[in-house]
């Protein structure tokens, strides 16, 4: 077939991802970010590498050396995960790495909890769901994974979730944030119902909504709605709430980009 000369390709398309790729490899970039403490370092690194067994080994060693299991959650596991999240946000590593690190981190947390009777100070709970009638759940799964990766407790109500189940879960879990995902124009209207029923009960929790069919204009139509463009916004919204409160207006100002 007809072909392009190598030097002509750039006139037709530019592989911006190639031209922009950072000088440093991800491993090098991670290395720069690990904490120096020699008990913490191996745990953080094992998190980054997504190696559950190494995480447990590292925790064991640290606890044996006298570290408090519950403190390790924040000081080692979350710190390691923080490295991962930062590299993901900077475009240096990709989602599957985050997923595998998060799995490793969750195993680590379970292990720490098993070593003591203390209960860790929770960072905050988020209730996630996919709108009633909708089976598209990958976006929600990513949202949930990234929230967990950032240390939030996630109550995942799954897909095709009836409105009333969302309301019940919110009443029970008292989350700092509810998320909804919908990929079809015919299902996203359930968000309005969730909003109305929450308000009926006097619950003014931010309700972050996203997914293929959903757009900012739509979400702006109901009082509690905050539009989320990409999954990585979910932990940012949750962090924003912890830092600056749950005023919907402020949240919209920060996250409504269109």
């Amino acid at each position, binding site marked *: *077939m*007809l*072909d*392009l000369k*190598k030097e002509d*390709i750039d006139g*037709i*398309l530019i*592989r*911006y*991802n*190639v031209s*922009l*790729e950072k000088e440093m*490899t*991800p491993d090098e970039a991670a290395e720069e970010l690990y904490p120096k403490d020699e008990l913490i370092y191996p745990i953080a690194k094992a998190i980054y590498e997504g190696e559950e067994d190494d995480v447990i080994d590292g925790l064991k060693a640290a606890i044996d050396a006298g570290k408090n299991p519950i403190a390790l959650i924040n000081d080692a596991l979350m710190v390691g995960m923080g490295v991962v999240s930062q590299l*993901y946000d900077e*475009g240096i*590593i*990709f*989602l*599957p790495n985050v*997923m*595998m690190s998060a799995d490793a981190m969750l195993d680590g947390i379970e292990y720490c909890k098993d070593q003591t009777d203390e209960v860790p100070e929770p960072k905050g709970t988020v209730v996630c769901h996919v709108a009633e*009638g909708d*089976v598209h*759940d*990958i976006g929600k*799964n*990513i949202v949930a*994974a990234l929230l967990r990766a950032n240390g939030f407790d996630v109550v995942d109500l*799954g*897909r*095709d*979730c009836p409105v009333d189940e969302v309301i019940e879960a919110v009443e029970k879990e008292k989350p700092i944030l509810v998320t909804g995902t919908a990929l*079809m*124009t*015919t299902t*996203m*209207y359930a968000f309005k119902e969730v909003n109305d029923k929450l308000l009926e009960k006097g619950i003014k929790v931010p309700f972050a909504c996203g997914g293929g069919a959903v757009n900012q204009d739509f979400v702006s139509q109901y009082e509690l709605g905050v539009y989320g463009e990409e*999954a990585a916004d979910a932990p940012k919204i949750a962090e924003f709430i912890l830092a600056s409160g749950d005023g919907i207006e402020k949240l919209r100002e920060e996250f409504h980009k269109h």
Partner: protein
Amino acid sequence: MVQKYTSMAYASADDLVFGKAKFPVKAGLGLEIGAGYTTPEINYAPRPQAGKSKEKLIKEYERITTDSMQRMVQIGAPSVVLETEHVEQMTNNPSWGGEVAHAQKTIMEEYHDEYGIKCALRHTPGDIREDRDFLKLRGDKYDLLMESFEQIAQNGADLLSIESMGGKEVFDYSILRNDTAGILFGIGVLGSMDMEMIWSDIADIAKKNNVVAAGDTDCAQANTAMFIAGGLLDKNLAHTIAIVARAISAGRSLCAYEAGATGPGKDCGYENTIIKSISGVPIAQEGKSSTCAHSDVMGNLVMQACDLWSNESVEYHGEFGGTSVQCWGESLAYDCSLMNVALKTGKEKGLRDLFTLSDKYRDPQGYVLAYENAYRVGQAIVKDGTDNYLRTKNAAVECCTILDEGIASGKLRLTRFETKALAKVQADLAALPDNSDQFMSDCLTKYKEEVAVFRPENYGL
């Protein structure tokens, strides 16, 4: 019974071109697909409020149909296909789907009678075979789905399609974890098994009603991978992995034609060039004029061998230039007009090469799907055509080889990240067993344990 492909439909990749299929398909009112011309396929989604009642829904589709047909005659388009992808209510209530098909076809017949415009109606029921937590591929939901096909076939649908979901529970788990075996198992093995079952039955229904069993797409898996992979700057999935999933999906979607479907394959099957090279069936495609529905990195390339050219889906609403179906339909019609001029003047291969080159080096996905590479993936599939596991594994291996060559040529420039992901897939593939029994038993053990929602009985296992 399914008859597996063990040879290629075309002697050489260069024979693959838009508008011509080795086995053209007659359908609807005067239309012949793949018989020397391309035809726009207009797709649409009803406005949200329209779902409220059956009456509203029918009215909505009547409007969509009239608008679309009207615009086609206004600009002088010789032919058009309309595709209705069911909203869930239409499949779950089979008579609804039938009534919508009937209402649409009535309008299309009026236009055909008045203007002579060639046209056909495709209906695509939703794959409703699941409950909230699990796939439920067999049983009463299956019967309901088949009843839906019956109803639409009896009431005016000319082309029957579905985007079936077999294997997706394992795939969904695997794709977010770079788990090559799981991707292959979900698409190549489980997906293929389900395809063989469902398409044998759809082909029977089509035959009985004298309509066309048109084909399936691996939307549920390969497209999910493509969407997660996203644009050049997205960082959720390496595009090298997305294209491996795509290559595998060709073996899976091919099963429809082995079970009796004849094409045109569905628009969102980016694996369709590979399938056309093997089977010679006409195919629908979507790309640069389906940006209303999604973004991709091979907008022109996919036109290379299309017979129908689609906008995938657009919500029905107003624009300055008319309703959305009119706007996108018109754009498609002009795209087809360009291809048809090339066909009539004998310049089609030249135009095809321009389409292909537009995106061949834009992304690893386009590189492998470029027709002469797609043809090679096809060859890898038919080499072990009778074994769903081996042939899809072959496709994955050949895909990686093609990418390696592209990198070596210096023209396909990948990021380090993409290269690394590719190397991992290659290593994973090399470690897989050589026979399908072994692979099946390894995977059953592994995924029954790891994927809570995986139910082997969905596949008769």
